[in-house]
């Protein structure tokens, strides 16, 4: 179970970074760390001790390969994570051009 617990600690570091830090780039980095931890957790949950990679060969049977379904799901999630990072960085660059800072407490032109 120590793998699951270490994965949980990694996710907690990302959550701390998102909630506590006040720099936009740090928040994007925290979201990235959370995404890494979630992807790794999926693959860890599908691992088998005696398993091989899920590719057919002559002596390959159902029970001696790792679970391929979480890998297919995570393959989709990785690409969507790239799209998320791209969009967040584009919005932050625009905010930097307008306000001249990445600090989220200084971005207060909307305050009444």
């Amino acid at each position, binding site marked *: 179970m120590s793998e699951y617990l*270490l*994965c949980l600690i990694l996710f907690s570091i990302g959550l701390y970074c998102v*909630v*506590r830090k006040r720099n936009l780039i740090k928040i994007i*980095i925290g979201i990235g*760390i959370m995404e890494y931890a979630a992807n790794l957790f999926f693959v860890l949950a599908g691992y088998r001790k005696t398993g091989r990679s899920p590719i057919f060969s002559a002596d390959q049977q159902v029970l001696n390969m790792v679970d391929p379904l979480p890998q297919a799901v995570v393959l989709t999630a990785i690409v969507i994570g790239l799209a998320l990072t791209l969009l967040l*960085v584009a919005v932050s660059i625009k905010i930097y051009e307008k306000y001249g800072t990445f600090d989220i407490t200084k971005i207060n032109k909307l305050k009444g």
Partner: protein
Amino acid sequence: MIEINLLLIFMIAGALIAVRVKDLLSSVIAVGAVGIALSLGFLILKAPDLAMMQLVVEILSLIILIRATIRKDIPFSMSGGWTFNTSATIVFLALFLAVAFFALKGMPVFGNALMRVSGAYITQSPALGAKNIVAAIMLNFRALDTLGEATVLFTAIVGVLAVARKIGHKKES
């Protein structure tokens, strides 16, 4: 599995450095190290497709993040709002850890996946002529998911183009 434990400890150290360090460029480089270690971890966990994909995506996102932070490493202040920030952090972390505790109690032991759904996929995919089962699941059994992924990518690119373009509206005088 001592290798995956060591890699996870390395990833936690890299993430801590990325969170704590003041310089933004160093922070981005540290998170890149975490991503490369994740790629190695996928390789150890017998997922070669994921390792390749993670390597490519990590390099791309590192380039994008460096583009955002280059020559803009402004030190940020930590004054003001300390009690609210800390209490919000504690509440969120406690909520997450409580949910994770109940979720982990229902998980099977590490190394003994159930494979209730993917057993059917594995037994059916030789009839489809697919050698790589991950590719068979992505392109045959769950092709609609892949279509949705392509839609999300297209939408994100359209959003980036709409946000990041230089030309504004021309005012009619």
